């Protein structure tokens, strides 16, 4: 990308000629459209954009974006993306994945890509169900959830994706309901700007197999009261009337009402997404009321590929080899005359 001017795009430039084949009403359409609108805002040439996916409904995503893309195999998108990024760090690498793809079969690659901190962007479509295989419980399905593979109720406790990600040292974690296209677009742009692995969990409603699983947080009628949209440097305020807030009491987060018991906005926690210590971020991702959305953590440090590049430059500077012949003919050679 260097110093060449970035071309101007509209969302149409990132729409491929492929017919989109998700179920009518699926949140995936919202995610796709938000992405197609966000991409022109990122200042990246479209030939430098690469979308990688694994398997599942979400993993059809690359076919619909007119850029470079690979629809991989189940669970391996994080490893494929890592290879792409290491091979060419100038590319803007995106990964579309789901709760089955990344938290079950691809769990290992998921935690390691977060640990290494490559500059790639992961969009995790969490619908708490397996959609493409038609309705089995996933690693985020709730205990008691009735699915095709748990007709009497699920007995496996779920992962909380944010908790798992922060445990794996995620530097950027954001969460959002699948019905918030404007905020979603903004988050995608922020994720691209962030240097390091960005993980965006979208609470994505599956209209066929798990309809309404996030309604208690995402329904328009309750959204503002049940979610808090976090912004770095701003006090943690939420609610339709902006009268609720969050304070730290002892080792717990608590909801308070501004104006009651002498509470003012000054008493509320101010969101610090950029601090290195993730203790508070952990508490925020686990909080059930209100549900924390927006950018919960955004802590920048050197990326894996930067460390690799720096080391390579260092080694090159001190090396006596510039061509392989130098190596082959070096050291312990002997001549047969």
């Amino acid at each position, binding site marked *: 990308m260097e110093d060449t001017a970035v071309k101007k795009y509209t969302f149409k430039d990132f729409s491929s000629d*492929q017919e989109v084949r998700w179920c009518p009403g699926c949140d995936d359409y919202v995610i796709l459209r938000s992405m197609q609108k966000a991409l022109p805002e990122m200042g990246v040439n479209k030939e430098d954009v690469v979308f990688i996916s694994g398997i599942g409904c979400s993993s059809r995503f690359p076919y619909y974006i007119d850029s470079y893309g690979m629809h991989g195999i189940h669970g391996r998108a994080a*490893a494929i993306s890592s*290879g792409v990024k290491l091979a060419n760090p100038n590319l803007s690498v995106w990964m579309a994945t789901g709760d089955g793809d990344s938290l079950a079969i691809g769990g290992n690659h998921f935690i390691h890509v977060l640990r290494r901190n490559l500059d790639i962007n992961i969009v995790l479509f969490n619908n708490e169900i397996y959609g493409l295989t038609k309705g089995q419980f996933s690693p985020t399905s709730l205990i008691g959830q009735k699915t095709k593979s748990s007709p009497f109720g699920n007995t496996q406790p779920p992962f909380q994706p944010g908790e798992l990600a922060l445990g794996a040292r995620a530097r950027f974690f954001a969460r959002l309901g699948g019905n918030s296209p404007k905020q979603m677009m903004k988050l995608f742009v922020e994720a691209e700007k962030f240097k390091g692995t960005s993980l965006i969990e979208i609470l994505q409603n599956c209209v066929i197999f798990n309809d309404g699983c996030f309604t208690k947080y995402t329904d328009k009628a309750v959204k503002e009261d049940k979610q808090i949209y976090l912004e770095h440097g701003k006090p943690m305020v939420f609610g339709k009337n902006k009268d609720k807030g969050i304070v730290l009491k002892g080792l717990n987060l608590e909801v308070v009402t501004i104006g009651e018991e002498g509470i003012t906005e000054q008493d509320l926690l101010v969101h610090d997404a950029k601090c290195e210590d993730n203790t508070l971020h952990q508490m925020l991702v686990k909080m059930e009321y209100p549900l924390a959305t927006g950018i919960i953590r955004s802590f920048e440090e050197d990326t894996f590929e930067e460390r690799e590049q720096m080391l390579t430059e260092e080694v090159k500077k001190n090396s006596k080899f510039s061509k392989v012949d130098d190596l082959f003919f070096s050291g312990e050679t002997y001549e047969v005359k």
Partner: protein
Amino acid sequence: MIIDNNKATKKAVEQVNAVVIRFVGDSGDGMQLTGTQFTDTSAMFGNDVATFPNYPSEIRAPQGSLYGVSGFQVHIGSVEISTPGDDLDLLVAMNPAGLKTNLASVKAGHTVIVDTDSFTKKNLQKAEYETNPLEDGSLDNYRVIEVAMTSLTRESLKDLGLDNKSIVRSKNMFALGMVYWMYGRDMNHTLDFFKKKFKFKPIIAEANSKVIKAGYYYSETLELIPNSYAIAPSTMPKGIYRIVNGNTATAWGFLAAAEKSGLELFLGSYPITPATDILHELVKHKHFGVKAFQAEDEIAGITSTIGAAFAGDLAITTTSGPGLALKGEAIGLAMMTELPMVIVNVQRGGPSTGMPTKTEQSDLLQAMYGRNGESPVIVIAASTPANCFDYAYEASRLALEHMTPVILLTDGYIANGSEPWKIKSIKDMQKITTKVVDLNADDASPFDRDHETLARNWAIPGTPGLEHRVGGLEKDELSGNVSMDASNHEQMVNVRAEKVKRVANNIPEITPEYQKEGDLLVVGWGGTYGSLHSAVRGLNDEDFKVGHAHFNYINPLPKNTEDVFSKYKKIVVCELNKGQFAQVLRSQFNEVEFIQYNKVMGLPFSVTDLMAKFKNIIKED
């Protein structure tokens, strides 16, 4: 110490063509270093050499135990040397366990050198000897040279003020000094080696130098060694050489292919014996821009490689049998997306975890067929430590020119074995023409194919105007879009198969060695080349009409294969498995009769056994 050159000349000097020597001791006794030094010195003297290390899978097995014995075998000669050798002319045993586990390999009447200091009651017990073999007559069939190496080492270092551990550690150099004297080798190479290796520990360099000299001069004056041996330099082709093992040669072949093709080299790998040394070698070469990525598992090893191939690198992944099994699904994706990459499988004893440090050829069918669906890939095999360089290069060339994954098979025997390599300069290597898309060409679409090879174009992310998607789903032949159309699928299956088949136009024909027709054709593939070659040479020396066809290209086979088979009365396929290549051959040449000779013991073939077997086959009706 005063050097008395006259003394040496008093001994008889016997001329020999070749000898096989094995150094054995505890895993901590430095046997690999001892063997390597003897090898390098002999190679620089002009001998042909071949080596094989044999070490336990335990890192530091309990001292003195039978399973903790580490060995290094070297075969040197004034004649062509093709294998590390079968039976031993000399065994150097640093302890009773080493003697016990290796004595059976020593030729009757030949020499065994032992460190008598290590034959303590405790060590004899650990080696499960009920009586001391040095005293009970069990070594009567050998010429045993008993030397108190530990005490002599201690004596020679008494003025240096070293701790006991460092002193005892140097005793392997006493043994090396003795062997140097026996074979008339110059110590200078090793003395220089100490200076370099212990640049910052001059006292250790001095200690090692003292001990090796002590061993050398002790032998010179010792009446126990009746004679020394001279092995003249061999007549190898002129050129600059170095000693390489197969894993290093493999790594260097990829370095050469990357430079020649103008691509950057990416390695995605997960540690596994005996393939890890390729990773160890390539991580050293960041100065060439090598991107060596140690992944979280075998699957990430190959899928990161697929990502790197998509992004335009010469991408490789290295593994051994169990890892190849884990990579199976991803190899299918690489084949389906038609991306160039090399998968190296350094075969080891299987199945399952099997025998990690032992050799076998039992992954051939896995390489050929170990994937879901109709998923042919190119399969090639290196056959000597040094030609691992050529076949790593060739695997890269074929992958890049044909846009398909290539599986390169080597094995633990050639990966860890070493021999002289006549160094190749990059300018002498065959050209590699990548399929990286030429934006000015008419057929710049990523899904357009070369009419001759059927290889598709390689449109690399970052190239404007060629944005496209690939994936594991079946794609339409022309547009590359996802297609579930029945006849398109069959057509695509045929195209992918035909693409691999046409690789036969881009590889050399097979040329049998020795007889071009005759009573018997010995067929092999991969790492058994040295043993089969030696056996066939032996038979031809005895005037048998035997040829040797050794296959490096397995899928597809060379075009003239059937023609070669038709020239012999009998064909025997020799493999370190239960007949996997024989099965592949039968599936393609169902008119031809293939006799099998198989061995699955985690060990290479014995040349003696092979010769006996071949003679029997020729005699049988």
